[in-house]
């Protein structure tokens, strides 16, 4: 592999990375905003979960490129938004099950105790159940973030920005080092975001540290 392309294009790499960050992270935020209420509804009214879960998985099965094309052709044009909305929909297949699992694993005695001391249903959700579900939810956010960063490179082929453009350009002009740079940056970005999320979770939930080995 020849590396001479790289030194002259560090600016482009930086721009692409920054763009990619926006491209990949906003969908996770959006996905979370949608998943939280959906997950809460699924737990409260059990019968809604199969359809919700089914739709989320169905969305995930749609080839990403098709959705990007659809959005950019018919809805929001050739802008980053056309990538963000499909990516957000893809995160649902991870985030909704994790919100549901997170809420379900709240120990029953804790839920009973919360009701019995006088928490109303909404207060119990906000002050007890969701906080306890945070570790599982963040685990889902981590997966969704990494997947979003990876999937987001497809958007680059459509000219929607991000590190994917490096792949398209590298392929069209036959510059393997550019493609390689794109791969490495994608992986690095995913790794850094994952580590940050782990730190955020540890900071948010000091109580979950030794859970696995703790006294019953």
């Amino acid at each position: 592999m020849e590396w001479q392309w790289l030194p002259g294009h560090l600016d482009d790499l930086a721009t692409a990375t920054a763009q990619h960050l926006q491209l990949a992270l906003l969908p996770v935020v959006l996905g979370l905003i949608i998943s939280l209420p959906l997950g809460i509804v699924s737990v409260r009214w059990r019968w809604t979960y199969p359809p919700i879960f089914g739709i989320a998985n169905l969305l995930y099965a749609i080839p990403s490129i098709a959705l990007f094309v659809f959005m950019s052709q018919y809805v929001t044009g050739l802008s980053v938004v056309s990538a963000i909305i499909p990516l957000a929909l893809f995160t649902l297949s991870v985030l909704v099950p994790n919100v549901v699992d997170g809420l379900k694993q709240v120990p029953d005695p804790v839920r009973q105790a919360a009701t019995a001391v006088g928490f109303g249903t909404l207060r119990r959700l906000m002050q007890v159940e969701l906080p306890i579900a945070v570790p599982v939810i963040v685990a889902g956010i981590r997966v969704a973030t990494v997947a979003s960063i990876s999937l987001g490179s497809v958007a680059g082929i459509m000219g929607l920005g991000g590190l994917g453009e490096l792949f398209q350009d590298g392929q069209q002009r036959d510059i393997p080092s550019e493609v390689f740079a794109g791969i490495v940056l994608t992986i690095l970005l995913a790794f850094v975001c994952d580590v940050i999320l782990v730190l955020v979770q540890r900071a948010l939930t000091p109580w979950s540290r030794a859970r696995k080995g703790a006294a019953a």
Partner: protein
Amino acid sequence: MREDHLITFDHVTKRYADGTVALDDFTLECPTGEITVFVGTSGGGKTTALRTINRMVDPTSGRVLIDGQDIKEKSPAELRRGIGYVIQQVGLFPHRTIRDNIATVPYLLGWDKAKARTTAMELMQRVGLPASMAKRYPFQLSGGQQQRVGVARALAADPPVMLMDEPFSAVDPVVRAELQQEFLRLQSELHKTIVFVTHDVDEAIRLGDHIAVFRTGGELVQHATPADLLANPADDFVASFIGRDRGIRLLSFHTADDIALHDSAVVPASATRTDARAALAGVDGEPWLLIVDDARRPVGWLSAESADAVPESGTLGDAGLLPIGNTFQVGVDPLRSALDSSVLSPSGRAVGVDADGAVLGVATQADLAAAIRAVAAGDLHPHALDRAGEPDEPEPAGGA
């Protein structure tokens, strides 16, 4: 006038969709300021009954009243904030510190944060937890410590009523005994109206002022004081539920007030062999002497042979003495302790002491037998059987 927090169950029935009857026309009163224990076999309805009080379960028919007011008149959340609730698995909030766990209800009630925290710290002390634990999390505490926090949380807003569902069942027996002791101490200070569920009849007898026995099918079989329950179980089910040795356990409820005590066999350690022989002459039955020190506290038992082995010039304190075993405090300790003392002493006599531990006298097994007979006559068999085996009209209680 002290407020009344009487809990009234008025023909409460709970039937589930699949036909199971958890409670069957249950009517009962739980007196203010006292501990009523619900005990019985599983499926008997004791937990269901408890949970109707704070509306965790709603009856199919019938009413539950607290202090004459139907609990349905308040919203469930409001009702529950005024009732303390302690469960077996504790249910502490893992994401909150111990202090914040305890202050849960005060926070919910909108108390000033500082006041809530101070109250939490006071309660920690009250339930025997060191203040250093305030900022820790539940996962860092042992089972027994967690349950203390659970009790503190229930007490935080000073509710007049406490509901406890097998709170001490998940810990080992040593810790359980400690918790029971602490619980009784707390109640003696606080006088809350408590309903306590357990499947352990010994715990019921130890803690309850009143006991309600449930049978599978949600049926109330007997409602009595512990002594009465032991003395007169309503039927075979209750008798077998109480288990073996209920006669001996009944002895725990009677103090040996007027048990006969003899002090002729009590001799100081400074006495000589001659004194011993003189004392022994006045002893009926087995020839043993109880040797005491200058403060009249018991030192050991001296047999006649050992007394003879004492040299002429020596004191009885130098002789080979056999250990006391146990003593009982006259008028305070139950008859069961006196029996225990008698069994453990080599002479077969119980050693009765006063509050300072000084010997008041010695009771022979004949004396004990007489005391036991008095208990039996007073408590047991209020109904004589006629020839056909049917109980008669109850006779007035009296000594034999």
